[in-house]
């Protein structure tokens, strides 16, 4: 049911854009107002989220480690698993962000038949390799696709776009040349979606908010692929529209084709949806408190920032106060 809600939502969004452009002639709304609004929501929303996180105090290093901490020189330490300074913490973060290392180590629990165990079954932990592979493939393809789209955002086209296009279209299949990333993207997102359907445990914990981004991404990729290979839109006019938006002189040329507006609207929805959803992990991954700190609690003193000055009455002060009485009672004094 959750999946159906999400699917209906994406289909409704597509229909909204299609009907808005093809029958109600709302090209200006979908070609200029919605993109500006979506990008504003994205920038302000993500900034708000991050700034709110930035106000949280960091009283102590709560690093989760899986290796030997740096201690005595003759004990071999494992600085990437238990970073002892900022450089290794940054390296560990880089591996996390660029290679999804913690996801790679994620395990899957299942019950395997075992005659010796009670109930005839025992728990086995196995690698969740394909989840990691699918996630990695999806994220990198998305990055390359996004960077390829800079051909619509820059004039003259920025230098890395032709390089990426040549690499991506390396096999030179058909005209316009098929881009590998487009196919891998759909396959990877499709796998991530099927995984939610086919694995009972994952299906049980999947919400509409888990399915919605996947359907949305499939909608974006699908509309993009259709535009490129099947139902052509006027690419030059599309770039005129995008350059108008980027130069803050919005122009909405006629005759682009409603498929483009569906694509653009879904992208706008994705962009605006970011700060309100799990997609904000894009910013949040950098602020994972158990990963982005060095494990140096033993080497450095960390002062709790919300410590208030405590009014203490030391023994010296007390002795000074009752000096006469202590002398009179014949008790020894620290200060002689």
């Amino acid at each position: 049911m959750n999946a159906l809600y999400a699917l209906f939502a994406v289909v409704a969004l597509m229909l909204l854009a299609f009907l808005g452009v093809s029958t109600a002639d709302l090209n200006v709304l979908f070609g200029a107002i919605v993109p500006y609004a979506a990008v504003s929501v994205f920038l302000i929303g993500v900034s708000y989220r991050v700034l709110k996180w930035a106000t949280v105090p960091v009283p102590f290093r709560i690093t989760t480690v899986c290796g030997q901490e740096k201690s005595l020189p003759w004990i071999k330490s494992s600085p990437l698993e238990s970073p002892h300074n900022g450089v290794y913490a940054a390296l560990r973060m880089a591996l996390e962000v660029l290679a999804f290392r913690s996801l790679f180590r994620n395990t899957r629990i299942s019950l395997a038949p075992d005659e010796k165990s009670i109930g005839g079954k025992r728990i086995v932990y196995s690698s969740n390799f394909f989840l990691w592979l699918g996630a990695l493939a999806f994220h990198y393809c998305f990055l390359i696709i996004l960077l390829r789209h800079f051909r619509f955002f820059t004039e003259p086209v920025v230098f890395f776009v032709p390089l990426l296009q040549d690499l991506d279209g390396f096999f030179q299949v058909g005209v316009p040349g098929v881009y590998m990333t487009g196919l891998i993207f759909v396959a990877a997102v499709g796998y991530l979606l099927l995984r939610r359907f086919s694995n009972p445990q994952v299906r049980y914990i999947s919400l509409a908010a888990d399915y919605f981004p996947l359907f949305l991404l499939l909608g974006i990729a699908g509309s993009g692929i259709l535009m490129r290979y099947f139902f052509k839109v006027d690419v030059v006019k599309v770039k005129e529209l995008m350059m108008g938006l980027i130069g803050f002189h919005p122009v909405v040329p006629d005759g682009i084709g409603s498929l483009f507006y569906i694509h653009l609207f879904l992208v706008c929805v994705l962009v605006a949806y970011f700060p309100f959803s799990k997609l904000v992990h894009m910013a949040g991954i950098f602020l994972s408190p158990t990963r982005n700190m060095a494990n140096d609690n033993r080497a450095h003193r960390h002062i709790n920032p919300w410590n208030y000055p405590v009014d203490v009455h030391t023994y010296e002060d007390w002795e000074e106060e009752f000096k006469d009485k202590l002398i009179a009672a014949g008790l020894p004094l620290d200060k002689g």
Partner: protein
Amino acid sequence: MYDGGKIVAGLVVFLAVVTSPIWYNVVAGKAEYRPDPKIVSQEKQCVAPKAWMTAMHMTLLNSWRDSVVREDNRVYVAANGKTYNMSLSKTCMQCHPNKSEFCDRCHNYASVNPYCWDCHVEPKEKK
């Protein structure tokens, strides 16, 4: 201690990257540029209507390539019954000899790098 300073620095970098196309186009100063492919031919009609050619010329050229190279068929019958010799250099470039002012204008604008000229000899243009 607070890590707010580092986080805000990261946020500033992120915002700069996200808005980079805006700055790029401010520096390059060509946001208003529009490609204007120049047609020098006296002919009134291409092998197909202009709108169709704009969208589908690459598909047409690809099918011409397959037809000539793989099937040894050089005759293209247009929708209006007229026949053409399937040849990039001899038919297309007859009317559009100005590659840099015709093909390249839109292709450069949309960053399209067709591999026509891997095999064909680029036409020599009058400067």
